[in-house]
């Protein structure tokens, strides 16, 4: 019987570079409130959001992903030909077929490499980064481009006063590759499919196609259910990520939670007992909730503004639709030049 080879990969890996793409158009709370009975103050008090960015209608997740991906590669001092796998985390690639990652691979100068999409809601970036780590450790790849990109503006009901002010568009990317010492801790990941309905497209595509098509599908959110789950369960997931990485809360320099709601994140940060000077990412204020893109966008923001430094120990915590979550202790990547 033939012995099937089992290759071994590289065990010390980290983020070599980071890049972000923020669409040009800034949408203020006041503009959102033209269509709903609400106010800038009400929205800010409850969510921490002052403004968000919307992509142009002709912009796509693929295009935004390419822009963020190119910067991440350049900031890692690599070129497209160094990338040997591309993972795109998104829920808003608008074609079921084909996936978006293959086109991104072509555009960044890596045509031909393994490329696939993963869909895991707002936890998508954390899942994709864990997979990138596994591919490298398993010997299947060396430098993996991991992208989180979303165009949520097209899924919003602008008259839904429970959620239309929450979401924004954007893309963030990192290159995961070999490093001298281990810079990515073990992933803690999980789900709660019993709360499948808490964040959902309200009409599935089959029902829409088979029906009269008068009512289009929109993204809906049961805010209270999600808040409760996030506040109770995500603190535990974050603590487990610290435990498996054998890192104490006092070792964390930067906390980068999913940018869903500043109030949830303040609560999580408080309960995790970080040091008083630990930086808590708050990119949501001018970016809104960009789902799978939020964590790389928020990391890029704290690095660009100098709030965080390369090599800082950071706790990443993604959570959202599915319901799904992923938490990981990491070392912050180099400062982005572009």
């Amino acid at each position, binding site marked *: 019987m033939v012995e099937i080879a*089992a290759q071994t990969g590289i*065990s010390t890996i980290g983020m070599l570079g980071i890049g972000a793409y923020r669409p040009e158009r800034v949408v203020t709370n006041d503009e959102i409130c033209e269509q709903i009975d609400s106010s800038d103050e009400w929205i800010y008090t409850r969510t921490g959001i002052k403004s968000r960015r919307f992509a142009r209608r002709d912009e796509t997740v693929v295009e935004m992903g390419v822009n963020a991906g190119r910067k991440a590669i350049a900031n890692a001092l690599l070129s497209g030909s160094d990338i040997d796998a591309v993972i795109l985390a998104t829920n808003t690639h608008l074609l079921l077929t084909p996936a978006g990652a293959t086109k991104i691979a072509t555009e960044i100068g890596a045509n031909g490499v393994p490329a*696939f999409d993963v869909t895991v809601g707002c936890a998508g970036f954390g899942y994709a980064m864990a*997979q990138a780590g596994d591919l490298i450790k398993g010997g299947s790849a060396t430098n993996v481009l991991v992208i989180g990109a979303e165009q949520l503006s097209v*899924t919003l009901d602008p008259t839904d006063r429970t959620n239309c002010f929450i979401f924004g568009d954007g893309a963030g990317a990192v290159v995961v590759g070999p490093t001298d010492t281990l810079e990515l801790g073990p992933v803690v990941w999980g789900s*709660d499919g019993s709360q499948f309905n808490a964040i959902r497209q309200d009409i599935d595509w089959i029902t829409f196609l088979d029906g009269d*098509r008068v009512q289009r599908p929109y993204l809906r959110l049961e805010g209270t259910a999600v808040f409760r789950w996030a506040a109770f369960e995500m603190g535990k997931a974050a603590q487990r990520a610290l435990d498996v990485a054998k890192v104490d809360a006092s070792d964390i320099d930067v906390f980068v939670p999913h940018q869903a709601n500043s109030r949830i994140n303040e609560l999580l940060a408080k309960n995790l007992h970080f040091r008083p000077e630990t930086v808590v990412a708050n990119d949501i204020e001018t970016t809104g909730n960009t789902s799978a893109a939020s964590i790389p966008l928020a990391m890029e923001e704290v690095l660009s503004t100098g709030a965080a430094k390369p090599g800082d120990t950071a706790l990443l915590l993604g959570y959202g639709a599915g*319901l799904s979550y992923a938490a990981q202790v990491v070392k912050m990547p180099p400062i982005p030049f572009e």
Partner: protein
Amino acid sequence: MADLVAPRGHQNVSILGIGAYRPARLVSNDELCTVMDSSDEWIYERSGIRNRRWITGDEDMRYIARMSAERAIENSGVDREQIDLLVFATSTWPWNTPHGAPIIAADLGLNGISAFDVAAGCGGFGYALGVGADAVRSGSATNVVVIGAETMSVGLDPTDRSTGFIFGDGAGAVVIGPSERNGISPIVSGSDGVNAEAIKQNHHTVDYMARAVEYQGKNPETDPVGRMIIEMEGPRVFRWAAVTLPKALTTLLTESGAGPDDIDVFIPHQANARINDLMRKNLGFADDLPTANDIENTGNTSAGSIPLAMEEMLATGKAKGGQTALLLGFGAGLSYAGAVVTLPPAPKISSFDGLDEQPTGPLPAHLAAVEGR
């Protein structure tokens, strides 16, 4: 500064069990040709397809995916509690949000485990198998359910002579986990985004929603809004496949440690029996090498095709547990992913058990003309 630790994984990983679900409703070429201007003979000669299966009644994506995984878990003998990751390869989950894997995990009694969806077209199962195997090797998971499932009939125009006869519905799943000997080779995979448009949905979802508004006032008889369907430029895909796949297979046979003589079974993606015959010949495999031909009665089930074909061969005795099989998925993206694997044991519960007695429902409206003669 805090040092980080790495988990320890299991280097040797194998497929421990397999399961599949085939929809009850079989649709023959003759039936299809009541609405498509073609014939059984024409379709069979070009594609090797005689029948395909479409979901009806209570069958939907969630159900067929769950059933295939139930059977895979049962057939693997792995304790359900020992499963800690579910990877779901599909291009036809009917929601953008949320993804399917967590709810399927919950349906399987595995609520809480890590679970995600992978989209890589017909190459999806190979990608999912690779990500799952690497998760075990690096210690991110221990036992993984990998599902490939599709309901291609949803995005099908049965009058379209280029794609209407090709696609079918179905689900296949495997359980992978640590093993004494290694049973899953390195995955050889790649893509070609230059040809991304060769297999694609006709309208993207936002355009289609705008179109639906625009067509509200029009007469559906004379000005039908149409559906979001998959379109394919067959010759473009064929040219790519002819150039790319032989190279991929050669790489695979080198990296896996298994040469052509070591391969007992060939399980290519079930897109076209003629392409598969050609690949087998070009690889120098013997004419009598057991080669998957599930396409004849299943059609092309995209990410579902490889586990469905593997299950068919094991269930019917065409292949045996412990044999060495060459897998190669390819399609939309364009993308491909292949591996050399040790086949799992024949399924104790197969997708054919009681299949003929299973009740069928009416076909959905856009396909109803097929049975409305």
